[in-house]
């Protein structure tokens, strides 16, 4: 049997296992586990299951350090998606997953199938998908190649989500040069499931049948996991196009409905979607989880093309397929449901007691592998982590930590800097993207992520779920642990500002080649930072995905990207707090205090890095206290609005709250040196809130109970944002030093809105 066709084969002298991406050590490990040599089909199955993508062989030991326990957690890491109870017999199910390399090779299909895949993970748990979020990362938007990727990926995300009728309610769009050839497409799906309808992904019941339903199996996506996702790649990667799966959202929609009907009527004993490594993965993981075996009859698998070799059938990543374990007496009903939804379905095997995945072709046994050897007992590769050499020397003893003389702000007009930040493609309006996504289908969307967190009500209850996703790749280049913790804190803050409580976190870890000690160190540090932040803020990690080898010879390694997604619960939708200024006359307050450090900020990108600057620090205890204040204030109906200070700093947060509310504000802000720290610094733990004028002291009193700083900045009203600067960093002081710094920000809403709205179309060359 030839596993790799002759014309695609690398030099013939390469041994088969190497051509499949297995190392010599792994071949030895296979033979040791089997006690015999593996045949070619078995090697192909091991190669996909032991790929980085499926086995997490480099990351598994690290992920074990994350906090996963929670009283309300019904399913955690290792399941197809995390599940957390929300009361009234309901649970929320969510996960984020990458589809980076397929999107680099074929942006539309790569992104579309990324969405399709994450939808199926949630459906496989028995949950109805209710929301999608997409975190996208690209290179410089002025680059033609990057623009092509942006257009294709955005169309692909919309093409799938819009068609299946699951609203795309949020996400992230970040441009950083390191993503030029290796964009990141991280898709998150959130679903709702009745607790007692939670589907199991384990095979059980000897003699039960394995039913494969959904699209027929073809040659698309052969080796997607092992070829595309588990190696770095280059500009010739378009040759890998046959490894990219092709999505059919219509079939995906039918698959969702049929699956939910099967689960809802309790017709299936176990369910798993076919994603990476196709039938091999579904069969071995289901058997392994259930401690049973599965015997698969290959000739029974519905195919869309003739002459497929057994290994092609076993590792094909054709989309929109599910494997269900069915009791024989329910088979008739299962097939009838599939027929009604127009989905091919076939009994392809049965559950056995021997613990093996056995592949049979027309009665002849052609492979027999212990399920654990393929799945949970896949080897772990010890990797070496080594921090990069420090680029800057630590400050000498006795020298102040931040000694620089406000270098970038010499001659700065803070209003002009604000304009530049609002017009920055990483900060300006995301409407160019979100207009292409259906965010209102389902009639549950209370807020789409165009502003901050996305909020969905739950029909028939007072509850709402709140979702956000964040990452800090620019900062991660300087300090990956800090950046991961910052991403967690920011994401949780985005949930907390609405008044909601985070239920759990899902993560997508996008890193470089784990064989490189520096890249591996970035991963190790990020996991450490993420775990610390989750423990300190008090919510579990419920699952996620790891994507390694995100690098290319031409464009280097991506900025380490720990993308986190949090789902929170708001007990009473009436208490929802929005981010926009709400009423003239309301008091504007800042909760939390600014800290020094501009490194890694959007301001630093514009103004240049001061040689001795560093990133801001993160105080997780203060962060948690802030979130507590926000929830208590929301519960007491104190807040008219609350908006997190993040990218672009306080000035941008104020401008956004003004633009979204269509209301200006008259404010006064004490600034030290350099003034940019207060105005544009991105230190965490700060939120701009508005409160009815007569009640602002109540908020400050509440904040004081938790030790959170609370300062009144001024009043909502008018059609301009005016921020007068006072203190050492303002004009008087600065002029004495000859810096000539302007003493206020004064911008009309209209001007700010125009700059903000045009940011993205302009950067992408699509401005009207």
């Amino acid at each position: 049997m030839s596993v790799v066709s002759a014309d695609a084969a690398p030099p013939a002298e390469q041994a088969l296992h190497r051509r499949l991406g297995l190392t010599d050590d792994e071949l030895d490990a296979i033979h040791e586990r089997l006690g015999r040599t593996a045949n070619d089909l078995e090697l192909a199955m091991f190669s996909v299951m032991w790929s980085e993508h499926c086995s997490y062989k480099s990351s598994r030991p690290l992920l074990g350090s994350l906090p996963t326990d929670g009283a309300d957690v019904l399913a955690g890491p290792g399941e197809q998606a995390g599940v957390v109870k929300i009361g009234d017999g309901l649970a929320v199910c969510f996960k984020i997953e990458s589809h980076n390399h397929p999107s680099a090779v074929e942006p539309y299909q790569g992104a579309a199938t990324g969405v399709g895949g994450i939808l199926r993970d949630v459906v496989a748990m028995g949950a109805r998908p209710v929301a999608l979020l997409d975190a996208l990362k690209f290179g410089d938007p002025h680059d033609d190649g990057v623009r092509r990727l942006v257009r294709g990926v955005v169309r692909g995300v919309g093409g799938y989500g819009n068609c299946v009728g699951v609203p795309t309610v949020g996400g992230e769009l970040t441009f950083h040069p390191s993503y030029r050839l290796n964009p990141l497409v991280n898709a998150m799906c959130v679903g709702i499931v009745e607790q007692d309808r939670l589907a199991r992904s384990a095979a059980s019941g000897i003699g039960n049948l394995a039913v494969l339903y959904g699209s027929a199996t073809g040659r698309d996506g052969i080796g997607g996991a092992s070829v595309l996702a588990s190696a770095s790649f280059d500009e010739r990667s378009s040759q890998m196009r046959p490894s990219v799966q092709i999505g059919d959202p219509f079939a995906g929609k039918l698959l969702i409905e049929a699956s939910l009907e099967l689960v809802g009527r309790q017709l299936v004993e176990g369910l798993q979607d076919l994603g990476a490594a196709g039938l091999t993965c579904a069969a071995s993981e289901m058997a392994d989880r259930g401690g049973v075996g599965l015997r698969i009859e290959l000739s029974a698998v519905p195919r869309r093309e003739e002459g497929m070799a057994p290994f092609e059938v076993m590792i094909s990543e054709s989309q929109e397929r599910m494997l269900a374990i069915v009791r024989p007496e329910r088979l008739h009903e299962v097939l009838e449901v599939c027929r009604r939804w127009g989905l091919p379905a076939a009994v392809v095997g049965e559950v056995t007691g021997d613990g093996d995945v056995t592949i049979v072709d027309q009665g002849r046994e052609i492979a027999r592998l212990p399920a654990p050897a393929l799945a949970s007992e896949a080897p772990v590769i010890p990797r070496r982590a080594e921090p990069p050499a420090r680029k800057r020397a630590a400050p000498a003893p006795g020298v102040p930590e931040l000694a620089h003389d406000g270098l970038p702000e010499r001659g700065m007009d803070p209003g002009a800097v604000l304009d530049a930040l609002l017009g920055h493609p990483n900060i300006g309006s995301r409407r160019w993207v979100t207009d292409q996504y259906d965010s209102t289908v389902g009639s549950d969307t209370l807020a789409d992520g165009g502003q901050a967190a996305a909020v969905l009500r739950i029909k028939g209850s007072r509850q709402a779920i709140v979702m956000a996703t964040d990452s800090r790749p620019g900062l991660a280049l300087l300090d990956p642990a800090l950046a991961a913790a910052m991403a967690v804190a920011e994401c949780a803050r985005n949930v907390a500002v609405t008044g909601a409580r985070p239920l759990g976190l899902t993560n997508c870890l996008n890193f470089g080649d784990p064989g490189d000690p520096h890249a591996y160190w970035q991963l190790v540090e990020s996991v450490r930072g993420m775990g610390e932040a989750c423990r300190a803020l008090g919510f579990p990690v419920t699952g996620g995905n790891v994507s390694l080898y995100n690098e290319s010879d031409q464009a280097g390694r991506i900025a380490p990207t720990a993308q986190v997604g949090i789902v929170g619960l708001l007990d009473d939708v009436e208490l929802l707090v929005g981010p926009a200024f709400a009423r003239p006359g309301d008091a504007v307050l800042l909760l939390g205090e600014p800290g020094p450090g501009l490194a890694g900020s959007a301001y630093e990108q514009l103004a240049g890095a001061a040689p001795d600057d560093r990133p801001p620090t993160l105080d997780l205890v203060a962060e948690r206290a802030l979130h507590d204040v926000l929830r208590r204030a929301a519960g007491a109906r104190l807040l008219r609005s609350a908006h997190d200070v993040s990218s672009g700093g306080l000035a941008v947060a104020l401008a956004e709250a003004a633009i979204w509310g269509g209301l200006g504000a008259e404010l006064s802000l004490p600034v030290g040196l350099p003034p940019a720290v207060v105005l544009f610094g991105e230190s965490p733990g700060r939120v701009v809130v508005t409160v009815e004028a007569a009640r602002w002291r109540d908020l400050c009193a509440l904040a004081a109970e938790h030790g959170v700083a609370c300062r009144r900045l001024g009043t909502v009203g008018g059609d301009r944002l005016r921020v007068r600067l006072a203190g050492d960093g303002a004009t008087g002081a600065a002029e004495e030093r000859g810096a000539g710094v302007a003493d206020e920000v004064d911008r009309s809403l209209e001007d700010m809105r125009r700059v903000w709205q045009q940011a993205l179309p302009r950067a992408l060359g699509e401005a009207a």
Partner: protein
Amino acid sequence: MRVGVVVFPGSNCDRDALHAARLAGAEAELLWHEQTDLGGADALILPGGFAHGDYLRTGAIARFSPIMGALRDHAERGGLVLGICNGFQVLTEAGLLPGALLRNASLRFEHGWVQVEVAREGTPFTRNLAVGTRLRMPIAHGEGRYYLPQEQLEQLESHDRVCFRYAPGSNRNGSLNDICGIVNDAGNVCGLMPHPERASEALLGSDDGMLLLRSMVESAAGSGAVAA
């Protein structure tokens, strides 16, 4: 008073339409496209979505669904039919409404909240709505550019069959004459690109769509009074 919401494979606003019809005071149920009867429904909604994946052409396959015969009979008897978004596309493909919905002028899927202006009052769908009333609803479509040849367009206008237009600044797909909703000559079959069923509660950003849906429910009930 019963509203039937037709479900084609690929419909995705069916549950939204069901929810909104119930809020409008109707009993409502889903009708599978393979049915050949309407299960006693007094009025029908063809919901949005991608019936049969919109493969071939939007609505082109759905019009051959078994339920379409009963739907046609219902319409001929004067029964109310409201096609929303993909449902509008199906009604034009089925010849129950004139014109066609072409690819948006932007060549992109367009989603967003728009202002819709009532252009004709007194139809079963605009019973309590004065001409010029503005309704805030979402649009969500890739093929929503209403088109028909000039001569037919003039006829449509002169017969006063345009019941909804995009307000200035809201025509994002390039529809002729800003048309977003029309009725047939008898006035009992209506096609509409925006989504009234998603503007069903103030919580969601608008409940303006309920004015239209309540009008339909009241008209089908034959009187202003509908049991909630």
